[in-house]
């Protein structure tokens, strides 16, 4: 069971909860967790005990990626769950940056969903995960190609 949370210097960019939690508690936990994690210094270890959970976190550029896992879960493999997720984002967006996640938050959620489900790994293969997302993108292109072109021009 994991709560993947991804945040940046105090701003929450993406969060996913795999246990039923009240909105109010979510906010409280996120606030508390951000304080704890942001206060950590660079060379410190990537794991800490928090409430009855273990926090596994890693910083990538301006973003902190955190997972809250249970007592018996494996810390190192969780760290690599984070890394694999970052790789997936990177592959999909092409050197991902924070702005990609802000502007395409729904895509980031889709990728996370394809990778983790109910807090467990669905597939560890990069190809396996991205295939699903890209298929969806192709479907979308077919759906909306006339409009997409217009919008694209509007953007340009």
């Amino acid at each position, binding site marked *: 069971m994991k709560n993947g949370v991804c945040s940046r210097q105090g701003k929450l960019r993406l969060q996913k909860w795999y246990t039923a939690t009240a909105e109010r508690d979510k906010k409280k936990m996120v606030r508390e967790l951000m304080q704890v994690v942001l206060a950590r210094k660079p060379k410190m270890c990537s794991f800490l005990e928090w409430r009855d959970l273990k926090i596994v976190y890693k910083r990538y550029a301006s973003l902190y990626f955190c997972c809250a896992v249970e007592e018996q879960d494996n*810390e*190192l*493999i969780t760290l*690599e769950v984070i890394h694999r997720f970052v790789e997936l984002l990177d592959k999909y967006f092409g050197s991902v940056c924070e702005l990609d996640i802000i*502007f395409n938050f729904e895509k980031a959620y889709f990728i996370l969903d394809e990778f983790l489900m*109910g807090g467990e*790994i*669905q597939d*560890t293969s990069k190809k396996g995960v991205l295939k699903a997302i890209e298929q969806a993108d192709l479907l979308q292109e077919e759906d909306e190609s006339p409009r997409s072109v217009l919008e694209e021009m509007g953007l340009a």
Partner: protein
Amino acid sequence: MPAVSKGDGMRGLAVFISDIRNCKSKEAEIKRINKELANIRSKFKGDKALDGYSKKKYVCKLLFIFLLGHDIDFGHMEAVNLLSSNKYTEKQIGYLFISVLVNSNSELIRLINNAIKNDLSSRNPTFMCLALHCIANVGSREMAEAFAGEIPRILVAGDTMDSVKQSAALCLLRLYRTSPDLVLMGEWTSRVVHLLNDQHMGVVTAAISLITCLSQKNPEEFKTCVSLAVSRLSRIVSSASTDLQDYTYYFVPAPWLSCKLLRLLQCYPPPEDGAVKGRLVECLETILNKAQEPPKSKKVQHSNAKNAILFEAIALIIHYDSEPNLLVRACNQLGQFLQHRETNLRYLALESMCTLASSEFSHEAVKTHIETVINALKTERDVSVRQRAADLLYAMCDRSNAKQIVAEMLSYLETADYSIREEMVLKVAILAEKYAVDYSWYVDTILNLIRIAGDYVSEEVWYRVIQIVINRDDVQGYAAKTVFEALQAPACHENMVKVGGYILGEFGNLIAGDPRSSPLVQFNLLHSKFHLCSVPTRALLLSAYIKFINLFPETKPTIQEVLRCDSQIRNSDVELQQRAVEYLKLSSIASTDVLATVLEEMPPFPERESSILAKLKKKKGPGAVSGNELEEGKREGGELNGAGERPGDSSAIGASNAVRLHIPTHSLNYDIIYPPPPLFQSTPSPSADLLGLRSAAPVSAAPPSAGSLLVDVFSEAGPAAPAAGANDDGFLRFVCKNNGVLFENQLLQIGVKSEYRQNLGRMYLFYGNKTSVQFVNFTTTLKPVDPLVEGGAQVQQVINIECLTVFSDAPLLNIKFRYGGALQNLTLKLPVAINKFFQPTEMSSHDFFQRWKQLSQPQQEAQKIFKANHAMDTEVLKAKLLGLGTALLEKVDPNPDNFVCAGVIQTKAQQVGCLLRLEPNAQAQVHTHFPVRALGLESRPLGVSSVTTLSLCVSVVHHSFICNKCL
């Protein structure tokens, strides 16, 4: 791979996000959001039907606004509409919105379920996956009810696509976690287990999470997975990494799957089949060997993945605890990591070694690393690593190294992080006690603890040192001398004054021969601290003074003068005043003989579990400290409490006399408690109470987290927290436990902790304001409380409870307050049921059935057959029956499936013996009989005798006070 358009063409959304990012202030942002919300609302309400694209765009905007932290109260219907769209991206956004924003009790759930049903039967794999994701994300009971039957079929069907199988497996896992009763695997079991053999690694990776969870709950049914898991693991471990293509991660073959396989194996004992076991041992050896090979890559990902498998393999080796060779190899491997430059590895090695230390095979090997660990405690820059080092020192401590480790921990305590001090103090206290060979060392250690970290020395710790000093006459003189010296310090901690007061009051005579510590010097020393102390300490000191009068008659005039002065005899604190008045009177009217009897030296405390060990267990949760630790310690360290050496002292005397001064005069009709007893014990272990107040109290069936729940009801609301607003539910939870959350809604949370002894009880109610707005005119029917409850604040109420006679209806508590002008009125049942006043009674099989037969008249028996609401787990049932307060009689009933219990209900009017028998019928999931037989119960009307003391005497009788909701 084509770089597909990343934005999906929703330009309006991109513009909106840019606008928000450009907002200079929070106000501007809110303004912009409100403008957008108004726009969307008008679009949704407008006459013109929106096309799918616009709907998708607006729903996506709403989602964005929600994720920024704003509330969204519309748009759900539009999102549900998107679900039935044929366009994938519209459906996808619809599902995303639902997953993030719809809570389980939404009335839309029926519509959503319909859409999911359509997608599941669409045979379009992408649609099916979306639907499965949505079920897993929401994971509510309604969803489980609707789909738990269908998903296993999809999972094992031959024609299901791999990607759908993966989603189905994890979706089922989620539903199993929320509603295990609805997911019936029966006929699917073997096919699900065989997914471990699936050709597609992704399917195996997903399925194994499901299988692990199911195996934990039903190990017997799933045990065939062991040999499959071993052969799968062996294929991965011995494979050349190229075999696995995309499942090789930084040159490590299938690290996730390997970890999960090793984790699955930890649900089972070592394989019985020799061949399987041989293969597994080979795998574990290979993994250990690989750790010694040079890395195939310098990337941290490579070593992390490799070491993740290694740590999981070590966890399995420790779990088996049967292969000395592997255990020692594991220990050596971890020893290397202790000095690794990666902080993460040092942390994990310390953590993992803690468990190795408790294995008899590797304990000695762990001990060889003591210097490294001590060094870690001193030099690690990260407090969480230091914490692990302290844990490991604690775990590796035994008689041979206790003095060194305790000394190191004490010196570390001086600079330790505040967050871990209390735990460190407990650990030092436990080790000092457990491995004390000479008691002067023990006393020195504890007094040092108080000196260094007095604020963190909890009551349990100083109670314990007193308990031990009282029980060991060979250390009493030394203790008196040492506290006397410690008290000389100009500023000493109040806990030191407490220990000093108590010990000098008991054993001051042992050092009185020395003129430097003559009785008067001792008294003046203690009294010089008096004015700086809190009320409970002063109360204790007053008791010490009266003991002085008995020990040293020459101090009588001085002490009487002190007691007589206005600041004592007219003290505004009623307890202090009372003690002063009574002690003064006692010292003036009682004869020397009477005085000597009343103020006799404390009898030894009965032997029982150390209160500090119980406290540490409570802090760390179950499993952190092994239950027999103290016994082990005693075996090694000798009889510390000395109870064994004083066979003449019956524990009954200890339990009652030890804590009280009996006042023989009739005018003084109550007991003075000396020293102040712990107000409340919330530990699951009744024997944790040092002062023996609850020596025979029932074992509470509260979950282990209940202890901490009580300290802070708000942050720790664990699984025990009842559903909002259902007090009946909340009430029933309290039948078998004493502490927890009684009630919770949007505004208010009410936590309860309570304790019962004989026919008396005390209940603490904590009213927590969950809002940020204050409650005004806050009143309860029990007794006055502060009418203002600030936002986020908590008020506490204490009530005393006396059970006058047998009752069946719980007393009601009415709470009124105003929240933002609106009057809130709540009526709740107080969680007081007759079983709280049970005193457990042990009896033999013969006695039990003889009494059972005697109680055969119809009005003496109640019987009920009911359906079990939960799986009938023997241990759970036992815990509940113990929680009920009765004694659970083992080996009494000839049928081992039955449970029999006995107890006496203590009321003021009478004592009622109760025998109870539970006959579970596992096949039908029915408890076939629940007869309760009791003596002489009768009906009385209800009366509430005073405002602060709630006395219970409600009607009725041989009524089943336990029902299917509880079991």
